[in-house]
């Protein structure tokens, strides 16, 4: 086994995902076999090969910094599950003793 339940739990935490115990078991087995399959790439010598991040080479695209009409605050916050006026409302971020 390449990965354990603990690895899956840890990675799920990094990805901000709760999982139930059944899912952890299921994913552990499946992800282990997928990673073993991915290890087939190790058979290839890729020394000196530059990685591709985009298939079509495009440089840094610049534009003039001009003020243009954009979304209103109402439009930007209109889909929020909870808001006060045009502010997003979130649970406490800073712990209060």
């Amino acid at each position, binding site marked *: 086994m390449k990965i354990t339940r603990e690895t899956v739990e840890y990675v799920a935490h990094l990805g901000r995902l709760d999982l139930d115990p059944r899912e952890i078991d299921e994913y552990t087995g499946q992800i282990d076999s997928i*990673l073993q399959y991915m290890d087939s790439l190790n058979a290839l010598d890729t020394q000196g090969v530059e990685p591709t991040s985009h298939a079509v080479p495009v440089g840094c695209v610049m534009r003039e910094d001009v003020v243009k009409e954009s979304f209103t605050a109402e439009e930007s916050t209109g889909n929020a599950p909870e808001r006060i006026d045009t502010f997003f409302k979130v649970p406490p971020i800073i712990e209060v003793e």
Partner: protein
Amino acid sequence: MDILDLTIVQLREMLRKKEVSSVELTEYYLNRIKKYDGEVLAYLRTTEDYAMEMARSADERIGRGEDTPLLGIPLGMKDILCTKGIETTCGSNILKGFVPPYDATVIRKLKEAGFVHLGRLNMDEFAMGSSTENSAFQTTRNPWDTTRIPGGSSGGSAAAVASGLCTSALGTDTGGSIRQPAGLCGVIGMKPTYGRVSRYGLVAFASSLDQIGPFSRNVSDCATMLGVIAGYDPMDSTSIPEAVPDYQSFLGRDIKGLRVGIPAEYSVEGMEADVKKTYEDNLQILRDQGATLVDVSLPHTQYAVATYYIICTAEASSNLARYDGVKYGLRENGKDIIDMYKKTRFKGFGKEVKRRIILGTYVLSSGYYDAYYRKAGKVRTLIRRDFDAAFTACDLIVTPVSPTTAFKVGERVADPLTMYLSDIFTIPVNLAGLPGISIPGGFDAKGLPIGLQIIGRPLDEGRMLQAAHVFESVKRVETVPGRLRD
């Protein structure tokens, strides 16, 4: 004459001459959806009032003598393309009720061209899947056999076009999500060159691979649709600043002397006999039409699926970080903000999406980044070079679309790796950023469609359409099952 067999060019002619109105065409499709979509389940929602309003407006514009390529033509949209004022869910519970405040660039272009929006088409959640079984809402059925899947992730788009529930549709393709369902449902589906069509307003899955493209029942409609949606867009920094050719002008030209590459590596274990036989028969048709078949080699093909699933899950885990219960979509309350994120994402995402977030987070995590993500990027370079080398000896590459015809609903759900391997012939094209088209190639003994894939050089969609059109005019393959005709 059946409306379903007319091209958009022909329908536009009839609309211009007032032989039919856009309102009539729109009602025709809305009625067909009511009659047939109960068994196909291609649409998540129809947008009847919106469609009728667009149709009436199109008829007025036609009355004023306006003439744009899609004026009055009813289309279906994959539910991943942001459309102002229209719920856009990506097949996910986490985006249920999300109403975008803006139009994707492709939607804006379709509106300028005068289209009618019939409704939202089903898909695997966030375009992750090959069967639509990962949709949070419903599994679309293959119109040729409703016990089978239509392919995915754009399964709703493929099934709607094959069932005659719209004139054409848009889908998206990250590893085959247009071409595979088009092949399994027996219609035309094109993934354009990466950067040919703007991704602005396409909800991101894997940004270096995603591309929007059309589904249609004939090559001419594919050319019309591509001509409307293609082109440079300042809102997408990966958009290619090249002029869009008149794709219709490629249709009707012969393919004498065209060099067609046949990759040795695409003859894989597990390929069904009927798929292989049909592929060989179809190559003979191209040869009979004057094309020269050339053996080419794409030696890194066997590494494409592993490379793809490292890159796409990595990009997905990053892109899907935005679903945090703050800005839009679902929120589950928690004791603090981290707890709220975790509970929201637990409840809002389906199985496959969670699996990919975990995989993607793993391959990007400290200590594994070089072994997986960086390694995959390097192999991606080798796969691109394979195609570059092959295209020095040929003009187009022709392959099967999938190793098998449509499988049964439920057959591969428990085995993600087998599901991933069903995209072996389509994935390398995305990794290399090339254009690919799936066209109807025939049927197997069970009456299930078999697709033929044509791959081109970057921005060579015109030549692909030219070859597809020659093939279509020689081998007429039925695109709508007889029982779904009125």
